[in-house]
């Protein structure tokens, strides 16, 4: 009911001429209609996740392919486009449709402008907190990585911004790729007394001791609230293990249940998890763990306007996912009565930068952090004629640009680019700046590789990554998208078993032979040996390629031929 009311308010705002705001006063007036949704209950928890170090407003196109397989088919979050609008009963308001889907992206991005940005988010957080005294702000992680400035300052810009934003607790994933020493340095230094890192599933590899507190107990308006942390379980697998050599991760279901039970016996009336599992893993975990009221999810970058309610032996758990790139702020209002959650309201508020004036203090902090790097970041490398984006199960136009650059610069036959889900969007006609390239590539292991691979090895890699995406059991998934492939064609049956999904591999019309060797270019190797192999950083290679081209035509996406997914609502018709 309440959600519907909220959506109606948004729809009304749309009718009254939300479109390009002519003045600051007008922007504020419109923002009032959207963002001053009434508070509810006595405990409020705000949630950001996966901002990937985007301090300034950006464009971000949601995916048009996000397939769910087996038990996940057709269920949130595996729904895109018109099916998404229908599933979540989003009224025919273009602004909301634009926030949550890829539909008519280019057209509406021009109308509604950029999203996110910490200065605008700060204004929204202040506004929401003003209506909700005592509210906590939770950060699901992937905060310190994803931009050039974050990379060059080892996440310091984001550490400072998170403190200024008023984050209370966070959990981890990409933060760990600066190395365990850096995470501990921030945890014990900058964050001391300000932001608490929680993670029930990070232990020392030797004794299995907790590295961080598994949960933190907070008093919110007289209610004891336990916030458990669940870091990304597969950090040492999806990212280089040598960066967290002394830590072990995993889902650790048994320890999660023990942690929940400990929090309850410690008097917690509300138990929530800030999770970097990814939504499918959260849904499965919610069905098997008792005593969790709500899971604030991230990792898979699914902007879910409505939570999924999961039944388990102990009751019900609210499972949310709050998108990425600073685009959304999640607001969960709980009514806690007689020691337990009696009712709730949830809103996922899109952060439209034009509707929220920049907070001056935060803006100053951002400008100061960027100042030493702006001349490098602002370099215009080329003009893009097409829309450049990344998100999608199999390929994105910005990835295609990277794949093309790899083949051209390394004189390779085939190229691979990782299926990362972060990376911002560029509108047609815009210049591609160095900052844009870094938004797609800024990692601590950016080395370009050129490898002689047998056809059989290429198949093995594609099968392996494909299983990480489409294994019917979510606990065996890693939450990334399919590796992007340049040069060669293939077919993919996501519904097939491991080892049988990839077929019809061809290069320039000729079948790829198992025992023949091919030149394959790639980047982001997780092996420690690659660190010392002297590979160029991927952003330098892409920048060189773009500078020479000057104008980039809309890339022609190399997509696999898909089998057995006709009619799947996770794919645009």
């Amino acid at each position: 009911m309440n959600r519907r009311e909220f959506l109606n308010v948004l729809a009304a705002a749309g009718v009254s001429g939300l479109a390009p705001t002519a003045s600051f006063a007008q922007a504020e007036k419109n923002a009032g209609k959207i963002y001053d949704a009434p508070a509810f209950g006595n405990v409020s928890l705000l949630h950001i996740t996966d901002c990937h170090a985007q301090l300034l407003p950006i464009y971000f196109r949601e995916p048009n392919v996000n397939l769910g397989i087996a038990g996940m088919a057709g269920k949130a979050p595996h729904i895109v486009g018109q099916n998404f609008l229908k599933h979540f009963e989003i009224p025919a308001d273009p602004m909301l449709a634009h926030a949550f889907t890829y539909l008519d992206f280019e057209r509406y991005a021009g109308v509604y402008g950029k999203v996110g940005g910490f200065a605008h988010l700060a204004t929204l957080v202040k506004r929401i907190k003003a209506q909700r005294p005592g509210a906590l702000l939770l950060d699901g992680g992937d905060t310190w990585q994803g931009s050039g400035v974050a990379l060059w300052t080892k996440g310091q810009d984001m550490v400072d911004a998170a403190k200024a934003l008023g984050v209370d607790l966070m959990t981890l994933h990409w933060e760990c790729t600066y190395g365990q020493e850096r995470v501990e340095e921030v945890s014990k230094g900058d964050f001391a007394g300000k932001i608490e890192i929680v993670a029930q599933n990070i232990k020392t590899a030797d004794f299995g001791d907790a590295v961080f507190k598994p949960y933190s107990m907070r008093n919110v308006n007289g209610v004891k609230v336990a916030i458990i942390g669940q870091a990304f379980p597969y950090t040492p697998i999806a990212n280089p293990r040598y960066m967290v050599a002394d830590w072990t991760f995993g889902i650790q279901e048994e320890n999660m249940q023990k942690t929940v039970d400990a929090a309850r016996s410690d008097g917690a009336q509300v138990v929530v998890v800030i999770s970097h599992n990814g939504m499918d893993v959260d849904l499965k975990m919610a069905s098997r763990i008792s005593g969790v009221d709500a899971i604030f999810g991230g990792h898979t970058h699914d902007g879910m306007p409505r939570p999924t309610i999961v039944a388990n032996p102990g009751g019900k758990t609210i499972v949310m996912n709050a998108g990425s790139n600073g685009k959304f702020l999640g607001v969960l209002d709980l009514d806690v009565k007689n020691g337990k959650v009696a009712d709730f309201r949830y809103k996922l508020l899109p952060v439209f930068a034009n509707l929220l004036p920049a907070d001056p203090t935060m803006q100053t902090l951002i400008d100061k952090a960027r100042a030493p790097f702006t001349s490098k970041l602002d370099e215009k490398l080329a003009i893009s004629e097409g829309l450049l984006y990344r998100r999608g199960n199999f390929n994105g136009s910005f990835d295609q640009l990277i794949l093309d650059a790899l083949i051209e610069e390394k004189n390779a036959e085939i190229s691979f680019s990782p299926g990362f889900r972060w990376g911002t969007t560029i509108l047609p006609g815009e210049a591609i700046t160095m900052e844009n390239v870094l938004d797609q590539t800024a990692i601590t292991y950016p080395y370009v590789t050129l490898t002689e691979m047998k056809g059989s090895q290429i198949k093995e890699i594609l099968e392996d990554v494909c299983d990480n995406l489409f294994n019917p059991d979510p606990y065996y998934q890693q939450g990334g998208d399919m590796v992007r492939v340049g040069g060669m064609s293939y077919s993919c049956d996501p519904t097939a078993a491991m080892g049988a999904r990839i077929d019809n591999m061809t290069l320039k019309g000729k079948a790829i032979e198992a025992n023949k060797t091919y030149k394959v270019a790639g980047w982001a190797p997780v092996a420690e040996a690659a660190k010392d192999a002297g590979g160029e950083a991927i952003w330098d290679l892409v920048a060189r390629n773009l500078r020479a081209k000057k104008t980039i035509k809309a890339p022609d996406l190399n997509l696999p031929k898909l089998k057995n997914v006709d009619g799947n609502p996770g794919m645009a018709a």
Partner: protein
Amino acid sequence: MLNQTSRRQLLKNGGLLGLIAAFGSALAPRFAFAAWNKAAFEGKTLADTYKAMGAEGAKESGEVQILASDIAENGAVVPLQCVSKLPNTTQIAFLVEKNPNMLAASFDIGPDIVADVTTRIKMGQTSNVIALVKADGKFYTATKEIKVTLGGCGG
């Protein structure tokens, strides 16, 4: 964390090392008595290995629990734990279906030992891992798939 620091400190002081040494010598005679089942450790198929262990007809049991990661962080060192709640448990073994030799480890459980063992094994590829428990002369199992992946490409 406090307990971690103190445990490490204890180790540095040599206290725990002394403790381990003491345990080691106490346990050594038991290990010495256990015969090395050569045929079992050289078994190339599940049927051969079970036969060599006398475990044919082992049954799945809810009283046997196998604890391990769903995806191995490092195939070369995969931590495994097995807890048996069956009375009179005398043996706990780990078998990896797709390893060249399936039997990875076997522990004899004496009457004064809690039937809860942890070890680390090596896995070449994604496989079912079986915890095989002998209790009251009969064999019981619990199975879990552990995935060994190439890594990389995470969201």
